[in-house]
């Protein structure tokens, strides 16, 4: 069963506060570029996109005995060029911070997905909700590698929902 279904994603409304428990995957700029290149080349992806939640984060190194270091969201807008391709292949939620493009918002509506905002600049606080972390792809990218995270009650706000609503004021 996918971590989050289309029906679940479509039930979320902008402004809802959510607590995520389960598996999420990390990817930021370079990992997005590689994931999209792999899709274009028809290659197998390092994780199943259907129902996936992707967290835009590049954590600090874990201290010995710790699971992860600070792990807060990076600016989502930099992933705007890549997200529609991933949404079209079943990704149901993204966690980041800030605004998304009209193309991304259209994809959220069309395929049934959401964009979540996590607390930016609070990587120490958010790291408490991550109970395991494992690099599963692109290890050469260091902090930008794709990690499989197990999270518990990870707090976020629905910033863009599948009905075209946003939590932000129009700019």
């Amino acid at each position, binding site marked *: 069963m996918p971590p989050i279904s289309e029906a679940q994603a479509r039930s979320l409304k902008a402004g809802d506060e959510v607590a995520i428990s389960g598996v999420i995957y990390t990817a930021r700029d*370079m990992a997005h570029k590689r994931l999209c290149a792999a899709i274009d080349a028809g290659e197998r992806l390092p994780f199943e996109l259907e129902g996936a939640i992707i967290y835009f*984060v*590049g*954590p*600090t*190194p*874990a*201290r010995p005995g710790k699971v992860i*270091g*600070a*792990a*807060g969201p*990076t*600016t*989502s*807008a930099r992933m705007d060029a890549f997200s529609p391709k991933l949404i079209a292949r079943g990704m149901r939620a993204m966690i980041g*911070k*800030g*605004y998304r493009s009209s193309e991304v918002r259209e994809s959220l509506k069309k395929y049934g997905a959401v964009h979540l*905002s996590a*607390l*930016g*600049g*609070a*990587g*120490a*606080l958010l*790291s*408490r909700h991550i109970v395991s972390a494992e690099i599963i792809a692109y290890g050469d*990218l*260091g*902090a930008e590698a794709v990690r499989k995270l197990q999270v518990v009650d990870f707090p976020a*706000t629905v910033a863009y929902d599948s009905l075209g609503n946003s*939590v*932000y*004021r129009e*700019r």
Partner: protein
Amino acid sequence: MRYIEFEKIVETVESLSIAAGYELPPDVLLALQNTVKKEPDPKAAKILKQLIENANIASGEKIPLCQDTGLTVVFVEQGAGTAVKPPAEKPDATLPDAINEGVARGYDKGYLRKSIVADPLNKRINTGSNTPAVIHHTIAPGDKLKITVMAKGGGCENKSQFKMFNPTADAAQVRAWIVDVVKNAGADACPPFIVGVGIGGNFELSCLLSKKAICRDLNQKNNDPFYAGLEDDLLTKINTLGIGPQGLGGQTTALAVLIETAPCHIASLPVAVNIECHCHRQKSAVL
């Protein structure tokens, strides 16, 4: 001439880099505490409290304040009566070498993220040490060496802007543009911000002034009453934009606006805005 040991500078930069990553400066923490009391929006006040909690967790549990532990910007004020004494095995080592060695050691020992790529456009391979630092060196009177280490996050740096105004532009036009830059940064750059403004100088100096401005204590106004008034005015206007903490609404969009100025050409009026997130990382030491 007072000689300062190379290794002493390395150790100082190392410890400043680590301290900056884990401890929010007292003036920033105080500003957050004060805004919690003033913020009427309960959701915004809750976020501000979480930011204070984050600072407490970071310093208490030794987890960096933010996963983006920044590009390291180092301001060095070198007393004219000082010189660096290189180690015997590296007779050609210079002050920038000491600073970069200190940054590399600090980011390694402090479990800080290494966020610097060597080639910006073509290869983008991480240097693995968070070096090279961006170093701004000035000569000051005396025989001291003052080092300020700032870890500048990428998300807010990306929203910083520069504009060349006509010299006949008035304060209202400059003010409107600065407010617009902040509005454009919005939720992307981790509000509440510290807004650094550089006015005057030339193309590159105005940008440097805007970065120097964010080094200032948040409670310290510009010495010139005109610019101090402009700082107050800008802060009031920015805090009526409704962006709020995390961009989710509220009256706390900026903690401070800090302006630095310099003389400029009769044809020019350069203005730069350096956006700094609430998670300002900066530590200083005097050797």
